[in-house]
């Protein structure tokens, strides 16, 4: 994909629709994310934020519309799905570390078995990533022995170990005690500065204001408003956006 210019779109979602049974969870959602861009998705509970970012790497299947990730169309073809998953890392609210593997093994598993990297090299890179997220000394421990903030930083390192071009975050700090939120956000800020393309669902308005290039506001399964942080926090247009911001900033 060397031909892609710097500011082309890396994720293009067009008219995406998704139903759970009869329930219309995503309604004609269209969004383009540029390379190196940080997009924060906000919105009330149940508005479809998780559903949307989970369709990007096919943890949820959409029923109509088109999603193209780094030029790869997201179809039923397993090869395409696997190719897209190799390019996108995901960080979950509940961390979802593998409890039976050590921190180091959590990080090296996918590089070794998906990217076929040799164990020694995978471990060396895992240690670098653990340095980067600030917890190299935790490498031999099991996830159950770590604090929530440490676990989430391991989860970020695990996703980064696959050398993804895009990182998806679904409420990465929502399960954390207040004093641990900071340490995770700092890692994410550093990642954004390094030029990683990021799509982040979060309720951390400070992060949205300080780090996001654009903010997307979703409500009842649709995108209501897209804009820069400045636009959002000073001059929101839609009534639903205003209401939401008023409630959350209260």
């Amino acid at each position, binding site marked *: 994909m060397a031909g892609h210019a710097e500011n082309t779109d890396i994720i293009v979602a067009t008219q995406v629709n998704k139903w759970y049974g009869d329930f219309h969870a995503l309604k004609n959602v269209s969004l383009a994310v540029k390379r190196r861009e940080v997009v924060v998705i906000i919105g009330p509970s149940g508005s479809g934020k998780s559903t949307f970012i989970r369709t990007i790497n096919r943890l949820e299947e959409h029923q109509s519309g088109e999603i193209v990730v780094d030029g790869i169309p997201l179809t039923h073809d397993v090869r395409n799905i696997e190719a897209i998953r190799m390019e996108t890392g*995901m960080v979950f609210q509940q961390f*979802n570390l*593998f409890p039976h593997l050590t921190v180091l093994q959590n990080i090296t598993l996918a590089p070794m078995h*998906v990217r076929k990297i040799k164990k020694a090299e995978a471990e060396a890179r895992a240690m670098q990533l653990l340095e980067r997220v600030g917890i190299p000394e935790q490498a031999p421990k*099991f996830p*159950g022995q770590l604090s929530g903030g440490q676990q989430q930083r391991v989860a970020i390192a695990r996703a980064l170990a696959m050398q993804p071009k895009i990182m998806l975050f679904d409420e990465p700090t929502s399960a954390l005690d207040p004093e641990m939120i900071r340490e995770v956000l700092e890692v994410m800020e550093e990642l954004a500065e390094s030029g990683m393309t990021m799509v982040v669902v979060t309720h951390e308005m400070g992060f949205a204001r300080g780090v996001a290039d654009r903010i997307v506001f979703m409500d009842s399964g649709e995108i209501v408003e897209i804009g820069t942080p400045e636009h959002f926090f000073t001059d929101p247009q839609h009534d639903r956006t205003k209401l939401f911001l008023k409630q959350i900033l209260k």
Partner: protein
Amino acid sequence: MATGIPPTHWVNPNPPAPAQKPPATTVGWIGWLRAHLFSTPANSVLTLATLWVLYWIGGGLARWLAGAFWEPIWANRKLFATGIYPSEQLWQPAVVLLLVCALFGLSAGRWGSIMRTVGIGLAALLLLLALIPLGGMAQAVMAVGLVLLLAGYWLGARGGVASRWLVAGWILSGPLTFVLLGGIDLPLLGASPAVDSNLWGGLMLTMLLAVVGIALSFPVGVLLALGRRSKLPVIRYFSIGYIELIRGVPLITLLFMGMTMLPLFLPSGWGNPSQLVRAMTAITFFSAAYLAENVRGGLQAIPKGQYEAADALGLSGLDSLRFIILPQALVKVIPAIVGQFIGLFKDTSLVSLVGLLELVAVAKAVIQQPEWLGVAGGVAREVYVFVGLVFFLFSYGMSFASRRLENKLGFGKR
């Protein structure tokens, strides 16, 4: 501050309090007795009642033991060990035993943990058997087995064997056992006459049935458990049908069906499988159905997030099963699986009803030997106590090893 409860506004002026030892409520063994056995009147009554029951049982047992007659077991030790396997060819089972000892030694050295536990148990057993005057040859075999076990441990612990080769060795040992026991044609040693599998018996047969049953029913059971959760209806309904059908039928029925009906299911060229193979087939299929349900329980306990994390990392479905889902699911159900295997081990005694001479069948035969007709009260008690002890020894060994394994695989829980 009279109550010791700080008022609403209060700042602790003290330096951080040092940690103190917990209060000693129990001192010495008398304190322990008082705290645990005689803490309340009800507890005291229970303790005394239990002691009385133990005394009653122990007294009866002691009276019987004083006059117990162990000669039938001693005289028939070869029969208990290998059944009516031809005496002049006993070197063949001996080679199998030595092979297994070597493999256990290497595994204990290479892998440690549970294998070391099992290896220690085996070593103790071999040492005991080498010291009991069973007969020169048998003792020599046990002693060599012990030496092989220790040598294997030494070699394995120094990394003298790759895990891959060890696994291959274990897998190969299965067919090799059958070849060795059934009779072989070696270029140097000459042919040993074939030994019909109906002649294999005793503890050797019990172990063979159990090990083969465990080794084969485990993968089949895991596949059935996965099949039961498959998205493909054909596979799912086949698995459900199989599991429910087998679980609805007693093992003895399957054994009889194996004896009479198995050839109907086999391709015509496969001939007529031996009784041993039929029994093994029935035991394996029976055990697999129960195992599948146990494993399914473990699979259900794995949170959806684990699958999602594996998917999101790009792991293939097979890799996700191998590295993420199954290891966790199986660990969760170790107690159930081992319980199932202990059940299987004891259920092998049912093959005595379809004409195979395993441990219980040998016991029955020994009891009826004419030599003991004159013994007052018969010899059934001694013989069954002995057989029971043998079963208990191995069952308890499995149970003990499983607990060790569970602790080992606790994943550093806090």
